[in-house]
């Protein structure tokens, strides 16, 4: 007599995007297109406009595995020294300090991170909250470091909390970023939707078409 355990379970197939509300599609696409056009340009200073006055931002970085940690292109030194991984940063004082607070501090911090070119077409975007008061979205994807030796690709996961502002636009109140190495599979598929030259103008690259309908579990 056996046990009634389900042993043939497999992982559900993955979707590139989820939208809690299809009405948010254009806004999210426009917001990300504009944001990353600036983020990937020569100067991230204009991102001051994108953040709320009291915005907070933190970044945590971690190696994919122990293997290859000493390969020069895999080194995450540019991130690790500022990483707010609270499993390692355990005292309250440091945890407070590593949380960048206020738009000036946030953009100054972002400006010091390596220069990038994001694979916008390969983004996975999840719109988790879309109400008149608040928008929460996450992104998963890869970018290339454009001015670092060997132009390594990095994997990232990022969350924005966004609120409407007084001028009819939107402001980021929370920004949380995770940076790691890319897997071999990510590396092979990166920028397969075409390379978009980093631009300093606003003629930005399109973010991958975000699924028009929310995909709910049946």
């Amino acid at each position, binding site marked *: 007599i056996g046990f009634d355990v389900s042993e043939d379970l497999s992982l559900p197939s993955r979707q590139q995007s989820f939208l809690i509300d299809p009405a948010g599609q254009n806004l999210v696409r426009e917001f990300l297109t504009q944001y990353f056009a600036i983020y990937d340009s020569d100067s991230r200073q204009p991102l001051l406009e994108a953040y709320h006055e009291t915005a907070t931002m933190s970044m945590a970085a971690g190696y994919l595995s122990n293997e290859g940690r000493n390969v020069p292109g895999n080194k995450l030194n540019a991130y690790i020294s500022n990483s707010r991984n609270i499993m390692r940063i355990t005292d309250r004082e440091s945890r407070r300090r590593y949380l960048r607070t206020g738009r000036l501090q946030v953009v100054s911090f972002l400006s010091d991170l390596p220069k990038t070119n994001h694979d916008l077409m390969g983004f996975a975007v999840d719109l988790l909250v879309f109400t008149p*008061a608040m928008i929460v979205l996450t992104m998963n994807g890869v970018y290339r470091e454009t001015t670092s030796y060997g132009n390594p690709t990095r994997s990232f996961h990022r969350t924005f909390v966004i609120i409407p502002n007084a001028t009819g636009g939107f402001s980021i109140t929370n920004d949380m970023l995770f940076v790691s190495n890319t897997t071999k599979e990510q590396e092979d598929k990166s920028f397969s939707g075409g390379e978009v030259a980093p631009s300093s103008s606003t003629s930005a690259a399109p973010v991958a078409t975000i699924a028009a309908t929310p995909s709910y579990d049946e």
Partner: protein
Amino acid sequence: MASEVALKNVDNACETAEEFTRVFYKQVDNSRHLTSKLYLDTGLLVWNGNGINGNDKIQKFLMDLPASNHVLKTLDAQPISENVVSNKLTYLIQACGDVTYQNDDGKKPFQQTFLIVAVDGKWKIASDCFRLQVPYNQS
């Protein structure tokens, strides 16, 4: 510049994130039949782009996933301004690490973002976004 209350809230967000993830991954890995209790009734799980709304459906979805073992490697947390979330205490938590599934090849890196909210003295997940670190290009 930030007020002492705001700074205390930063400490609390971090300490809550540590406790929350300890409970969450223990439940998902060892007592998954209880996991949906951690979500709001109207909670949202987005699992690799598949959206599941409401904790009954979340429970069913989770039960259909293979047995898992999560190892956390990085954790981060921020408070969300109470002006934004109508005075409810709300934290944003980002947990990253490796997950191994039963009958599957090796460990996979994952990233997970939670929005948790305090309701009647309990922390509940308002939304949970899970992503395996794989390519998502449609090609």
